[in-house]
């Protein structure tokens, strides 16, 4: 009673203004929840901290989730550096962390001695100035060199185009239409030319992603319907089971020659500048054959274990088979299907490197293979960079699938 009276009389006028003004309020709880849903739960303590929601607890959480992994990673890098010093033969050696850094960026960290002293021997400072200071043998340096080469090429092409256009106009002015048309044709020919450079590491990442996407999509299109059939019909399941069990454990290396026969037979040789090379499809085919199984099996289990109550709804309503599958069976098994898809994309990405190596697809596997063929320490250092990149991409793919999985998972009612 008393409190209420005090409240109304002493309420500061600014308070009322403030409450009116802040129509949009930062709700740390909601932001954190959204982050969790997006698979970015790692950042939710930061979101809560910004909203001043139990700051002490959030700081502890951040210390735990951020500092601890950083410390562990630092420990790993130190162990790696020590190992790199120890494991050395005359011909090969484990590259040091600094060498890996150099292999990626093409620039040395100034605080340390140069990681590849022999490569700069006899060169005048500043090194590699015409390549923006980057060693063209490194990943970024090579990409930069390609970019500069392309620019140069385009400029020289444009010069030719301009030259022929000028000649064409000249001829037209002189009234020689035939010559004018010919020059014009020449200029167009040069205008249509594109730079045919070497694939950089970043091109190869995209090709790898493209390959795995094709393999994964085809695998999904094949596996989900078969899985649904297996789940619905025990007879079909019995019939398919030996095949599934037999082919599931087969290595991508064993699939490669077989897929190779199919792509050689089924795909005409594309022009050399097309990205749709036969090797890409061979590699995607191997990915598909290996990543098919988790989706297939999980779909079958999901469909077979649809809640009996939900199937009774379909029975009472006399739903036709299309509606029964579309409205009841598939939605009910979506969470398990997505569990399968998540496993599948993990398997697909893992076998992709081997598939790329075998098929000579211009992806990350080819990169690793080429570097291995080079055999020098710089190349080995680049392989180490590739290992980190492959791991990071695999992690992101998994996160994306996790988010999809969360989105389709409905909360079961428990009454």
């Amino acid at each position, binding site marked *: 009673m008393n409190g209420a009276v005090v409240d109304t009389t002493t309420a500061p006028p600014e308070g009322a203004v403030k409450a009116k003004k802040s129509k949009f309020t930062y709700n740390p709880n909601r932001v954190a929840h959204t982050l969790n849903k997006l698979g970015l739960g790692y950042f939710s303590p930061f979101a809560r901290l910004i909203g001043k929601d139990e700051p002490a607890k959030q700081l502890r959480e951040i210390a735990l989730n951020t500092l601890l992994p950083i410390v562990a990673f630092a420990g790993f890098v130190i162990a790696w550096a020590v190992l790199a010093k120890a494991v050395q033969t005359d011909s090969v050696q484990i590259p040091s962390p600094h060498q890996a850094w150099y292999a990626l960026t093409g620039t040395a960290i100034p605080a340390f001695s140069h990681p590849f002293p022999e490569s700069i021997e006899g060169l005048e400072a500043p090194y590699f100035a015409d390549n923006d200071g980057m060693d063209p043998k490194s990943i970024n340096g090579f990409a930069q060199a390609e970019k500069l080469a392309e620019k140069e090429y385009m400029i020289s092409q444009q010069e030719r185009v301009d030259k022929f256009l000028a000649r064409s106009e000249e001829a037209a002015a002189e009234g020689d239409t035939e010559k004018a048309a010919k020059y014009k044709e020449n200029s167009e020919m040069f205008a249509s030319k594109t730079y045919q450079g070497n694939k950089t590491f970043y091109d190869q990442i995209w090709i790898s992603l493209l390959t795995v996407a094709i393999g994964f999509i085809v695998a999904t299109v094949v596996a989900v319907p078969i899985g649904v059939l297996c789940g619905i019909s025990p007879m079909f399941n019995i019939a398919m089971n030996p095949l599934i069990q037999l082919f599931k454990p087969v290595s991508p290396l064993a699939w490669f020659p077989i897929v190779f026969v199919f792509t050689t037979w089924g795909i005409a040789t594309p022009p050399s500048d097309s990205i749709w090379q036969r090797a890409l499809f061979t590699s995607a085919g191997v990915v598909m054959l290996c990543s098919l199984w988790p989706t297939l099996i999980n779909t079958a289990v999901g469909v077979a274990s649809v809640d009996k109550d939900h199937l009774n709804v379909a029975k009472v309503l006399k739903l036709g088979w299309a509606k029964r599958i579309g409205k009841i069976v598939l939605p*009910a098994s979506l969470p398990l299907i997505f569990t399968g898809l998540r496993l599948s994309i993990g398997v697909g990405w893992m076998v992709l490197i081997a598939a790329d190596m075998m098929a000579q697809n211009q992806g990350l596997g080819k990169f690793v293979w080429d570097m291995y063929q080079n055999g020098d320490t710089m190349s080995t250092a680049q392989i180490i960079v590739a290992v980190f990149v492959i791991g990071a991409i695999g992690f992101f793919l998994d996160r994306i699938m996790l988010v999809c999985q969360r989105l389709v998972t409905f909360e079961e009612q428990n009454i």
Partner: protein
Amino acid sequence: MPETYFEAINLGKTYKTPSGDAVIVKGFDLKMQKGEFVCVLGHSGCGKSTVLSMVAGLNDISEGSVLLDHKEIEGAGPDRGVVFQSPCLLPWMTTWDNVMLGVEQVYFHATQEERNQIVEYYLNAVGLHGAKDKRPSELSGGMRQRVGLARAFALSPKMLLLDEPFGMLDKLTKFELQQVLIDLWNRERLTAMMITHDVDEAIYLADRVVMMTNGPAARVGEIVKIDFERPRDRRDIMSDPRYLEYREQLISFLEERVYQMDEAA
């Protein structure tokens, strides 16, 4: 004498088990008129749900037959709306879609506009219009069962089958939902069979209360006719002297005579 609309004739259910045949229900006979509301009482495990699921067509009939509107039933179908103890809503659909799923099946010749009106009407009738875009996980237990009722009524079935629909609800919610059910029923007068464990609920809702004997081989034991005129008012009938009589009749059967009948059998 009004004609029979529903009839269970010598209905029986036998399960094959490793230790021989388990006769759950045997010789279950029951006739119902059109628009009659019958409650089925009996001890737990006696076979009430078994009878109801056979009538619904969700469980095979071992023996005997069920006639509805002069036709023998074969399998499940939307002419029998079923409401279970757990409402069995599809968790990936909204309230609206859960009701619409059945309406689309039954009114396949109607226009979308007409179907929308039907769904709207029944959601309003169970007091859920504000929750039509919610998913089951966002609803309380009572609200979910309201959706279950709307879904069953929206089929305009020949018969309504309810298996302890309010068994999991607290007393207050149960009263509310009994009211929702009986109001809807008063509008449409569907032939209804409802299983319950609650004697008061049976007296309040039913025209007749059917009491089953204990299993194995359960059948209809006694039938008590509840003569209160409709629409009923809960407080009026509770202060009616017949109320205690009915109550006494039902309880004494369940506590004593059911065992005597077992011995006699």
